């Protein structure tokens, strides 16, 4: 169970982590400045297990990985949006930040509401109304990357071919 931080359409990587804080690759330092300009209270109020809910094209802009790293290091459990920018989507999976696509959720929830999420089954439960929403679950292949905490961590203990094992 976690709280929702709700954002609009076209949230770009500069809003997620302003360019001038990109000088570091330390996840903690990045997390401190996450959404610093558009939502200065974010880093102080977000708790481990919270969620980001957004509209279309979340993560557009630069291909830099600082943006998903900042979100993940903030403790966000998953980002649920109507759609994601392509390179951002890949970067999230590669660094182990779960993302879900849902057309429905955005219009059904307010900022600060609570939801419960089952990543594997792609189920989202809105606590206030009890409404259950389905999104696409992750295929086994992608779940293995996310479970390992990202593809770099996966490669520390596995051969890349193991992503296909049992599929």
């Amino acid at each position: 169970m976690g709280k929702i931080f709700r954002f609009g359409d076209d949230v770009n990587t500069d809003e997620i982590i302003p360019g001038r804080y990109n000088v570091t690759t330390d996840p903690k330092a990045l997390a401190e400045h996450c959404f610093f300009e558009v939502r200065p209270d974010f880093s102080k109020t977000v708790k481990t297990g919270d969620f980001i809910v957004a509209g279309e094209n979340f993560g557009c802009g630069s291909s830099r990985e600082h943006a998903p790293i900042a979100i993940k290091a903030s403790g966000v459990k998953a980002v649920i949006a109507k759609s994601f920018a392509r390179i951002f989507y890949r970067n999230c999976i590669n660094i182990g930040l779960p993302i879900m696509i849902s057309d429905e959720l955005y219009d059904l929830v307010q900022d600060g509401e609570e939801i419960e999420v089952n990543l594997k089954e792609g189920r989202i439960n809105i606590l206030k109304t009890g409404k259950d929403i389905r999104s696409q679950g992750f295929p086994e292949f992608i779940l293995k990357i996310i479970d390992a905490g990202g593809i770099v961590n996966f490669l520390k203990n596995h051969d890349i071919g193991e992503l296909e094992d049992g599929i």
Partner: protein
Amino acid sequence: MGTVAEEIFSKKLSRDVSAGEIVLVDIDVTMSHDNTTPLAIKALRNTGRPLFDKNRIVIIFDHVQPPASVESATLQKEVLEFIKKEGIKNFFREGICHQVLVERGFVTPGRVIIGGDSHTCTYGALGAFGTGVGSTDIGVSYATGKNWFRVPETFYFDVNGSFSKGVYPKDLILKIIGKVGARGATYKACEFGGKTIEDMSLGDRLTLTNMAIEMGGKTGLIKTDKVTENYLKSRGYPYQEIVPKDPNYEKVFEFDVDDLTPQLAVSPRVDNVYPVEKYAGTEVDEVFIGTCTNGRIDDLEIAARMFKGKKLSPLLKTIIVPASNEVYFQAMNRGYIKIFMDAGAMVCNPGCGPCIGRHQGVIAPGDRALTTMNRNFIGRMGSDKGEIIIASPATAAATALTGKITDPREVM
């Protein structure tokens, strides 16, 4: 069986693959440039593994070349040390990455190529699957020789008719992006076909696939044919046929170029597309002809024909950057460089030139630049108080001649 994208992945894996599947494939070429290689090296180090196969790596210095600041010189020095230490042979400093990879035979039909650059989507003009990725992806391919993909659904652009005088493939791709929108093709493979495409030179095809990313596309693709085969065989590079078989397209768009007129994309969005007439007469401060979109010999030829025997106003910065050394030599042998310099244009060394706003023609606050680039985002060429307008090489050359946005049909 399937679209060009599905055919490539099916051939690669020797089984039928369709859109939506997640696949793990061998990466034939992993490319990065002076801006993205430092992070890729870091990503490789983070995996704790050695390079899997140094021969499948290509590094190009093109973005800020030669280095224009102590910072860029220092970063490039680090990359050079990596190249020397690892014994990487495929290292070039002779033009824009996407042009050099095509000229040097790294891009051949059926190959899967990733690049630390968003315009890696260009390679589909030769029936290869190219896509831009982040630094972790480059590091993963460095370390394992493989990477994962979700096979994309395809939007098909069926283009027919013939271009009128003064109208070019750049006008077509701007028109398409204006219609589809900057995120209208997100995640999709954008496949171009039809009579107009069949009649196009390889260089013009590269202009189209190059801009697939500007509508959100994962890649741009064109099936192989005689044009592809002739280009590759004339250079001794391998050819194989990659054509769609009974494809199932998610969407089909039809375009007829018979009535197409010269187009512009005005600041700050690539999908802000209008006919040139709408802005005719607007004064500009800089004209730039070059980039991976329009810095090839056909593009320079258009400008050379229009500049021949003319004088450009020195009040205007007119900058020409051939896409590669090969293009530069051709332009020299054909007398274009002399024409440009006689006219008063500045010809810079092959590379990205002012496209990323760090050297060779940075714009000032209040400057308006008309360029053959693929992006007009705020701040891309320097000051965030400047304006960037994208057009064809012919519109750019016409505008350089008058200092005001000019329809090329009026001066040709």
